[in-house]
Every structure is written in C-alpha cells, then in structure tokens.
C-alpha cells in the first residue's frame, strides 16, 4: 500500500505498523526524541507497534532540530 512518510510516497506492506514508517523515515530506531502524527493526530510511542497503517495516510515523523 502507498502512504506518505514526511511528504514522500512510500510503498509499505499491508498490515504494517507505525514502527515501520518510523524506520523508513530514517529516525533512530529506539524512537528516542521522535514523535509521530498520522493525519494530524498524535500517535503516542506506546501505541506505535499496535497501530496499523492504512493506505493513503499522511505520516509525519519528527525530531528535535535547532530553533527558537
């Protein structure tokens, strides 16, 4: 299925979870300092492995940068 990970089209297997999208984004795999939103809703880290992705979803994988 196709999803958008940080604005990039991404082909992922059916039934995969937020964990795979985080890995695909290039974020540290332990998820430390990383946050995820799907279609404008926060997905807490504790629910990444239980949250299945659906086709067409927009997944934002974010981490700290310099700013402010």
């Amino acid at each position: 299925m196709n999803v958008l990970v940080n604005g990039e089209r991404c082909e992922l297997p059916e039934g995969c979870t937020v964990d795979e999208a985080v890995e695909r984004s290039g974020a540290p795999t332990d998820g430390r300092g990383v946050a995820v939103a799907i279609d404008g809703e926060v997905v807490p880290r504790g629910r990444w492995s239980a949250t299945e992705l659906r086709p067409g979803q927009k997944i934002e994988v974010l981490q700290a940068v310099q700013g402010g």
Partner: protein
Amino acid sequence: MGLEIAGRTFSSRLIMGTGGFRHLDALAAALEASGAELATVALRRVDPSARGSIVEVLERAGCELLPNTAGCFTARDAILTAQLAREAFETDWVKLEVIGDDRTLLPDPTELLEAAEALVADGFTVLPYTNDDPVLARRLEDAGCAAVMPLGSPIGSGMGIRNPYNLRLIVEQAGVPVVLDAGIGTASDATLAMEAGCDGVLLASAVSRAADPERMARAMRLAVEAGRLAFESGRIPRRLHAEASTPTEGVPELT
C-alpha cells in the same frame, strides 16, 4: 535567588534559543559560555542525513530542553506541535509561538490566547512568546500561563527594546515571571531588560549570528547578571543638576 518558573528554579536568568548556529559544536561552546540551564528546540521532519543530535548537545551542556512551536500560524497547529513535543521529549513545558505575519513574525494575539487556554487545560506548562501588549500579557497570565515572554522587537531583528514603557507596564502588573524574548541585538539590550525588572531574557540570534558566538554568549551571561544586580540594588534617581560626591566641608583656602 534564580529564575523561578512553575516551581522550578534556574540559577541562570538567561534562556538560550538554539537557532542559527552554523553547527552543533558552535552551539555547544555558546551554551557552555552562556551558563544557561534552559534552551529551546524545535520539531521538524526527521532528516536522515543530519549529523549529531541536538538533544545530546543539550544533555552534555546540562541544559533542560524547552520545545517551541516555531513555524505555527494557527492555534490548532501549535497545540498539535506541543503535544508532539511532549511525546518526543517527555516534558510538558512549551514555549508557545503562534505567528501572525511571516514578514515581521509578530505573534497572532487571538490564536495565541486560544492555544494557551487549550494547552493549560491539557496540563502543559505554557511559556508564551507574546507581543509587548500589557493587556494581552494579563490575559495570558489569567489563562494560566506559567510566564509571559514579551518581545523587545521582532525575532532576529536585533532592534532591542522598542517600547520600554509597555515593558515596564507588563513587569509592573505581572504575577508570573516576565522573560524578554526576541529582539536582543547586543549585551546592553539584555541589561536594559533586566534593569526594567524582567525576570529573565531569552535570546538566540544575537549570539548564534554574532561573529564570535562563544564570546557573545559570555557577554550575554554577564549582561543579564549585571542588569539583575543593578535592578535589585536600587539605582539612584535621575536629577537635572549635579550633586557633589566629594564633601564640601573642609575645603582649604589655598589663595
């Protein structure tokens, strides 16, 4: 006594923004020289090519991390960004920024107040970047914000404190700490803010874009300390005419 916000005490009254440094080593050196114990970070899409971790730089510098909502133009985006930051960094502190104009980067007052109310209700410790408007500052305090952070002048402008009168009014009425945020150009601007009774100063560009960020960071540290000491020490009143500091009694007759 240091800077006390929401029951936490910081011995430094200088809060560092981390934007604009050319690389993380320059940031690390400036943080060290600044003595700051609190520093802002932003949230952006993961960049797999990025080298080094700003979170680790802050940890090594002994700085607590203060996530911001930079780049948000609506209350909705700012609220979501704050919630994401809470997930990423396990802190409920947030520097709330809701911008209303991309040329001046001035805050949008109505969106800011709406976001502040929602985030306070959601359990956040909210430090709003606000206009130098005493009425808005009071509304933000009434909404439950842990501090108010009025601008001296637009972000990155280096124009100093354009409305010292408004700043005095904000300080005079505030029941929460007042942190001057944005517009600092050089050390004397930071001192003026502290002499006006601000509880702290937050700055980034003045250090990160200085020719020598590390030395400017030290200058800011000293400026904030000097301004606070002067404020606490009670300056002399201004007077029109001179007042001799040497005794007028016992002057010899020499001719």
